[in-house]
């Protein structure tokens, strides 16, 4: 009976119940939004197992911080912010373990993307939706995590520069730079994918 009422309740009611300790209501929220939370983790870390762990950790944190949820955004957006922060922490830890001085230099100065000619033909023209999604996914896979994160937050989460800067812990100038070179690189990768398919 309780299960029926949970499945028909809206997020707002489920959050209220969960805030009073209702774990079953929270389970329903997890069930509704798990793909979105896992998907965001996956888009950032590009690894199934890590995305799984990070998304589950985000839900645990969500439960622990539920009292702090002030309804300034939807519950799903609030949870998405939690998983984004966890992924960024995870990526920073990973980065510390690698020597990325060259990557950091390229990230700020543009590296090879700086020298790439501007594309005059849209490489995604006349592609079917599914094909385009597949192509974009494999292009995103080839970006550095800083470039990919900037793009994901801007294009998919629709965050403004200043919000991305706050989340990523960098200046607005760095966000603009990362976004710019991420787009340039993405354009070239998409063009290369088109060329390699044509040959």
């Amino acid at each position, binding site marked *: 009976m309780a299960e029926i009422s949970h499945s028909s309740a809206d997020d707002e009611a489920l959050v209220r119940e969960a805030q009073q300790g209702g774990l079953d209501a929270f389970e329903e929220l997890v069930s509704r939004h798990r793909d979105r939370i896992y*998907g965001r983790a996956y888009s950032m870390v590009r690894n199934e197992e890590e995305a799984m762990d990070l998304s589950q950790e985000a839900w645990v944190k969500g439960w622990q911080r539920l009292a702090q949820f002030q309804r300034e955004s939807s519950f799903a957006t609030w949870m998405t912010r939690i998983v984004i922060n966890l992924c960024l922490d995870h990526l920073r830890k990973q980065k510390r373990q690698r020597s990325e001085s060259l990557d950091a230099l390229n990230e700020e100065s543009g590296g090879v993307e700086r020298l790439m000619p501007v594309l005059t033909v849209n490489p995604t023209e006349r592609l079917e939706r599914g094909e385009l999604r597949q192509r974009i996914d494999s292009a995103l896979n080839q970006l550095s995590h800083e470039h990919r994160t900037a793009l994901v937050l801007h294009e998919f989460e629709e965050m403004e520069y200043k919000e991305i800067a706050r989340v990523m812990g960098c200046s607005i100038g760095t966000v603009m730079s990362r976004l710019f070179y991420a787009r340039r690189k993405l*354009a070239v990768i998409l063009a290369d994918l088109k060329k390699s398919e044509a040959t």
Partner: protein
Amino acid sequence: MENDAHLKLQAFVDGELPEAEARVVASQLARDADAAALIAEMKFTRHALAGHEKAVRVPESRDFYWSKIRRQIEASEVERPAPVAIPWHAKLRRFLAPATAVAVVAIAGLLATQPVGVVGGTETSLSDSGAFTYRDFSSGTTLVWLSYPAEETLDDED
């Protein structure tokens, strides 16, 4: 084009430029083919991404995915330190200490209102409470000493 100019063009595409600057950039595009080409490239990248994020699904069943979350939630709640239980006699002593102090002060007040006429003074010890009073009849003053067992001492005794 310089890097700053590129970033300004991007801010124009993203709608992040103040209105006055956006108007300047828009007029520049008409006479700068490179800038216009770069803007076009950024726009098709934006359009390609918009609404084309690959949909991914949790590669586990609902129950399996939830069971791990539930275990972690339950484990974190067990790990939370339980409030320290205070024994009844310690609670009683904590109540009695200030109550005794109030009583002592009241007694001292009563003594102070007694008529003065006797030379010298008397010392009254309230040994149970750890407090004693001294009344100097000649000057009509009363001193009260209060001593409490320290909190640590109470805990040690528990």
